[in-house]
């Protein structure tokens, strides 16, 4: 009953909850949750293997090749080992928080994926509805009206997992690692949010399903409609958000031993490790959803025989793998940033650029909505560019002044 009311309140959501909530609906939801859970675990397992294999190739090595064909079961073996190892609680650790932290990192990684539409037919203006057991539904666990905000909220919660892990370990290096992590994630969340805002501006909806449905042809993909820049900013910020190289200062081995999870062993460590790779998968999925049309077909290709909904799944995974490979490639290629470089990139480059671009797009949108003439639109656009450039010049001037001040007067920091 409550669920039904909730569903009515959120109009335009998953059609599964539009009618009465009967047993079948509950079972379908449960099925989707289980499938999503299992899929993510398997995907994470394969991602770890994929990363190790690809990075081995890039370093002229072989990579895991003993457990199972091509070593594909290596992660399983590692996982089983980790789960059977002794759990060690450091004497000075806060027992409750120390145990809670891995789950705080792990659960958001799962939940984020629940709003990602993994399949369904979006071609010809379809909104990705598929029919399972006679019920119409989306191929995603949930389609909350807040959609993408839910993702941002969960990525903030994941910071707590890392922060509390470092703090509760009762040890210095983990604490330093978690302080770095929280500073880094908060910094890059701003750039992340601003580039998401441009997508929302274009899409006009927060719902992930709506965002995908709106990117009908390749020309409508948000990577094109938002002008590439937010995509680049988002990818960089997401890499920082994931604490993956070149932004892996959180676990910079040379400086911080293992970073925030130094004191963790056995299952706690396994959960952090799992969460890290699962986040890589989920954030790649979110990039695909936001900018590359999720399950939308490439060039409008219609694969023969395969039904449309399954085609969507195939396209989604193809795009996903591209980004997973990109993350591995980053790791193999780029050296780690220094901490001040990291902060410089975040605050002095990504945020101003994302913000300026957002304002520019907003200007264009407003002039179009107000139905200005074409020359008027161009004028407004030019004015926006001039303002942005002037603003950035002022910003750089301010930076130079403060740098000179630091030179002459010294700095506390």
């Amino acid at each position: 009953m409550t669920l039904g009311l909730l569903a009515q309140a959120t109009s335009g959501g998953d059609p599964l909850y539009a009618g009465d909530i009967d047993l079948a609906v509950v079972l379908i939801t449960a099925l989707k949750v289980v499938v999503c859970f299992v899929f993510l675990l398997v995907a994470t397992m394969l991602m770890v293997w994929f990363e190790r294999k690809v990075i081995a190739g890039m370093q002229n090595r072989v990579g895991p090749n003993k457990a199972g064909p091509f070593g594909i079961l290596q992660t399983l073996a590692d996982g089983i080992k980790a789960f059977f190892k002794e759990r060690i609680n450091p004497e000075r650790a806060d027992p409750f928080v120390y145990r809670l932290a891995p789950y705080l990192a792990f659960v958001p990684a799962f939940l984020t994926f629940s709003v990602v539409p993994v399949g369904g037919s979006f071609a010809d203006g379809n909104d990705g509805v598929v029919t399972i057991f006679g019920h119409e539904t989306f191929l995603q666990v949930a389609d909350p009206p807040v959609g993408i905000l839910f993702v941002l909220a969960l990525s903030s919660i994941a910071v707590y997992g890392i922060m509390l892990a470092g703090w509760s370990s009762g040890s210095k290096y983990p604490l330093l690692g978690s302080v770095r992590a929280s500073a880094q994630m908060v910094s890059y969340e701003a750039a992340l949010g601003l580039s998401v805002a441009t997508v929302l501006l274009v899409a006009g909806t927060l719902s992930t399903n709506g965002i995908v449905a709106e990117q009908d042809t390749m020309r409508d993909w948000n990577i094109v409609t938002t002008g590439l820049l937010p995509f680049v900013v988002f990818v960089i910020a997401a890499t920082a958000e994931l604490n993956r190289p070149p932004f892996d200062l959180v676990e910079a081995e040379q400086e911080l031993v293992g970073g925030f999870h130094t004191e963790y062993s056995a299952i706690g460590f396994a959960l952090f490790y799992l969460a890290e790779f699962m986040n890589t998968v989920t954030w790649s999925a979110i990039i695909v959803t936001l900018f590359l049309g999720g399950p939308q077909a490439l060039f409008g290709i219609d694969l023969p025989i395969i039904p449309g909904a399954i085609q969507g799944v195939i396209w989604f995974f193809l795009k996903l793998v591209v980004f997973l490979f990109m993350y591995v490639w980053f790791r193999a290629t780029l050296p780690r940033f220094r901490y001040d470089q990291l902060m410089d990139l975040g605050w002095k480059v990504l945020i101003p650029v994302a913000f300026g671009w957002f304002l520019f797009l907003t200007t264009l949108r407003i002039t179009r909505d107000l139905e200005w003439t074409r020359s008027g639109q161009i004028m407004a656009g030019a004015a926006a560019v001039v303002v942005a450039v002037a603003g950035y010049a002022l910003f750089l001037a301010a930076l130079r002044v403060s740098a000179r001040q630091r030179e002459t007067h010294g700095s506390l920091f």
Partner: protein
Amino acid sequence: MGYLQGFLVTLRQIRAFGGKQVTTEYSGGQGHGSHDEKMARTERLHGRHVLNRYEDGMEKCIGCELCAGVCPAKCIYVRGADNPPDDPVSPGERYGYVYEINYLRCIHCDLCVEACPTEAITESKLFEFSFTNRRDAVYTRDELVVGDDGKPQQLPWEDWREGDDLLSSGWMRATAPSGEAGAEGVVAWSGELGYGVRAPEPDQAERDTVTGSPDPTLVEDAKVEHAAKDDGDREERGHH
């Protein structure tokens, strides 16, 4: 565009994009067919020791304990005893009746080989020490002494391939025991079971023509392999 070039560098390392894989797939005896090969080892690799015997089968070790004395890791334990007059083990007065090397301690510095006055202890090219308990790490005389064919004994955890039992005797000892250049090319070592009196090592100039480099450890694997095979051949020729 420096960053993007960097990306190309890593991409090109993948074998599908023309990269070269440098890791050899070696399984230690649990291999799966084709992807299981041992790397070529350099000719002076310090592997596990063997206790050599003379051509007549007598053990070379005289139980003098110089190897134990010189060992910086204190991994060798030797006890000498008088040879039984009716069935002597070594041609001298005494023989090593206890000879143990603990391979959890051994650093393969080869000082024992340098110290040995009778060339009894030498290092083979075998490197597989994959025992599963500490007791197995202590190799006793029974395991170290060469077999009746003069070759090292194969231990259960050793994965031997073609030619692994070669190059186990003291052929690598400096050509002139005293280090005198004038003694180069003069046979100065005793005969050995399985190998006999070996021909002297080639002099430096000749070595350079074989290996193509003054330092054989620096030349490519293929050349080292070639050189090693040459040396093996020379030992074969040395048979009596």
